[in-house]
Structures are given as structure tokens and as C-alpha cells.
């Protein structure tokens, strides 16, 4: 350590960085509750508006519950993604994170898991609400439902986290996030809606649900790999 040129900052392992970023986000959220409460309230409002508009004499349109569930999650997720990174921008903490001697993809994974946790928490409230308001019997096959919900949430969060991070420094980022996010996650949402709708069929066919679940897993793998590579390249400045 005699030569100053040999001094290197201590590096942190990938898993430890992921955990530190995730813990930071969860701690901030547990203390303030800002994103969790606003996202949840927005998602519940969405579902209620659809229920007011579509449920007639206690009956919802056939297949409507699955679509409404995922529209509410997508809209609420967009709100959460925008706010999660707006907070980092205002406090200049994203710059601090990017300057830290840690692997960049680990920062992405930490933020991504935080968004997944937030969306799953929202879904835990939304699913019974949709089940109740649309008499949808969502919980008839709980394991399949959990698989579809988690896989679809991962796909949504993988792309959403990347674009929300990329847009932090962009002009009119609030408008651009849905413009970029929605066309890319449409296949994930379609698979999520179709998989959930297959669960609600009176004649339940596991092969159909398995097909949509496999498609979702394929999308998840492609999107996460692509996002990991893109995050490193895009956030290099």
C-alpha cells in the first residue's frame, strides 16, 4: 500500500450488495410506507372503479376478473416504479449507488427484488378483493395461482425496474415510463391474464395453465438476462 496507485477501494460481493440495496429499500418503505400505501390505494381504487363499471346484479363479465386484476397491478406497478426511482433522484442516492465500488448488476437485482416485494404485497390485498367483488373463485387452485402471479410479477418488475432506472435522468420521465414499459410488457400481461383466466374456468385444465406459466417463465428469463446486461451498459455514464 506504499504506492497510492495500488490502493483499491474495498469491493463488496454480489449477493451482499443485493441484500444491502434490498434492505435499504425495505427499511425506507417500512419507515415511511409512502410507496406501499399509495400503490395499494391506487390499485384498490382501480379495482373498485372496474367493479362499479362492470359488475351488474352481482355478476361480472366472463373472464373480466383476470383482466381487471392485471390491469390494476400494471397501473399500480407503474406508479410504484416511477416513485421508487424519483426518491433516489431527489436524494441523489442513485448517483451514490452508481459511484459505489459494487457490481452494477447487483444494484439492479436489489432494486428489482424491492419492486417485486412491493408488488407481491399489493397483490396479497388485491387477489381477495377481486375474488370477492367479481365472484371469481381465484383461490380454487392456490399453487397454480401463486406460480402465475409470481412469474408475471417478475416479468413486469424486470422490465419496469430497468426502464424506471434508465429514465431517472430523462426529460418528461413520468410520461415516458408507461410509453416504453407497456408495449414491452404486453406479452407478459397477456400470458398473466390468460393463465389467470384459465384458472377461473369451470372445467380446469392444468395443461393450459402450465403452458402459460412456462411462457411466463421464458419471458422472465429473457427479460432478466437482457435487463442485467442493459443496466450495466446504460448506467455506465
Amino acid at each position, binding site marked *: 500500500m506504499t504506492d497510492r496507485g495500488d490502493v483499491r477501494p474495498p469491493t463488496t460481493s454480489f449477493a451482499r450488495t443485493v441484500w444491502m440495496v434490498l434492505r435499504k429499500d425495505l427499511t425506507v418503505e417500512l419507515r415511511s410506507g409512502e410507496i406501499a400505501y399509495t400503490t395499494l390505494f391506487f390499485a384498490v381504487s382501480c379495482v373498485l372503479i372496474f367493479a362499479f363499471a362492470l359488475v351488474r346484479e352481482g355478476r361480472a363479465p366472463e373472464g373480466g376478473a383476470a383482466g381487471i386484476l392485471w390491469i390494476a397491478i400494471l397501473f399500480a406497478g407503474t406508479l410504484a416504479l416511477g416513485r421508487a426511482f424519483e426518491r433516489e433522484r431527489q436524494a441523489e442516492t442513485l448517483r451514490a449507488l452508481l459511484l459505489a465500488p459494487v457490481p452494477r448488476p447487483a444494484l439492479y437485482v436489489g432494486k428489482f427484488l424491492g419492486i417485486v416485494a412491493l408488488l407481491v404485497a399489493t397483490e396479497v390485498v388485491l387477489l381477495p378483493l377481486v375474488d370477492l367483488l367479481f365472484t371469481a373463485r381465484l383461490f380454487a387452485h392456490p399453487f397454480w395461482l401463486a406460480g402465475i402471479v409470481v412469474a408475471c410479477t417478475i416479468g413486469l418488475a424486470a*422490465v419496469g425496474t*430497468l*426502464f424506471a432506472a*434508465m*429514465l431517472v*435522468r*430523462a*426529460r*418528461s420521465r413520468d*410520461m*415516458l415510463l408507461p*410509453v*416504453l414499459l*407497456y*408495449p*414491452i410488457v*404486453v*406479452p407478459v400481461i*397477456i400470458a398473466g391474464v390468460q393463465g389467470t383466466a384459465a384458472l377461473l374456468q369451470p372445467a380446469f385444465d392444468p395443461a393450459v395453465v402450465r403452458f402459460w406459466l412456462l411462457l411466463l417463465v421464458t419471458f422472465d428469463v*429473457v*427479460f432478466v438476462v*437482457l435487463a442485467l446486461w*442493459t443496466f450495466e*451498459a*446504460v448506467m455506465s*455514464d
Partner: protein
Amino acid sequence: MPKWFSPTAILCGLMFVVSPVLIARSPDESAMGMVYKIYYYHMPSAWMFLLAPLVCGVSSALFLARGRAEDDRRAWAAAELTVLFGALTLITGPLWARRAWGTWWVWDARLTSSLVGWMIGWAYLILRRYGGPGSDKLAAGVALFGAVNVPFIFISVNYWRTIHPPTTVVPRLPVSMGVPLWFCVTAFLLLFILLMTMRLRLEVARTRLDALYVALDE
């Protein structure tokens, strides 16, 4: 403009003038009759619609890896061609579908993924126009997702039940239908190359002009 540009442009123009004659002289399809002939323009524009996002995605990946401006310019030009050829595909397709299937549009895998690809092209252009400084790298990220969608569009007809013809139709065409089809594919490919060249030249000129303005201010 490069030396080959003018002769290629004349050749491409002549091919587009001759193509309606070849299409008119090709036989009608047994089940669909005359309406089948939209296919001679629909399929080549659809192929260019698949080629453009691939060029855009590969150029964007190179731009992210090497940071060279020419890769970014190529990606931008290809994104504009994605929107152009996407529009041609999505106009000619429903014209055919109305007569062949009795409906303008069905939400099957091929049509939906094509629409998604077209929307990603638009998202790229909107980001370039309104994203402000740094939007080049952000748009490159979008382009990668657009390129990933291309294989999905291509194979979708073979894996999903759909009324759209599968990819196996083209190799099985008789010569009387295959010749006008490949003639049109060549014409569209030349048009793609010409438009790409013109768009790249425009962007190079714009960059030079900006540099001159900066030099003048200093």
C-alpha cells in the same frame, strides 16, 4: 450519395413499376381468388418489418458496447423503417383478412406480437424525440427488447393455433406464384437499403451541421 445509389434507385423504381404486371399475371389462389394478391406486397413488407428491428437491435447492442455514433445512427434509421414497414404490414394484412377471414383483425399470437413490435418502434422514436440528453442510450435499451420480439413474431404462427398462414407456405409455392413473390421481396429489400442509406446520410449531414454551429459560436 454513394455511386451505387442512383442506379439502385432506378432499378428499385422500375421493379415497383413492373411488379403490378407480374402480380396481375400470376394465377389466382384456388380458395381466396384475387384477394390473395395482396400477399405479394404484404409478405415482403412484413419481412422488412422483421429485418428492421433486428438491424436496430444489433446496432444498439454495438452502440452500447462500443459507443460509436454510427451504430446509433443506424439504429435510429432502422427504428424509423420498423415503423414504416410495420404500418405497411398492418394495413395490407387487415385488407386481406377482411376478405379471407371475414374480419379486419383477430387477437392471435402473430397479429398481437406484430402490433407489439410496431409499438416498440414507436416507443423508440418517441423516446428519441422527447427523452432529452442521454436518450440515445436509453433508446438502445428499448431496441434490444424490440429485437427479442422478432423471433417470437416469426415462430408464433407455428406454435399457436391461428388462422394466419404458417411460415411453411413460402417454400411450397408453385413457380408461377414464387417468381412474382421473390421479385417483390427483392424490390422491398432494395427499397429498405435505399431508405436506410438516405436516412443515414441525412443524419451524418445533421451532425456535421451541428458541429459547424458549435464551431461558429466558439
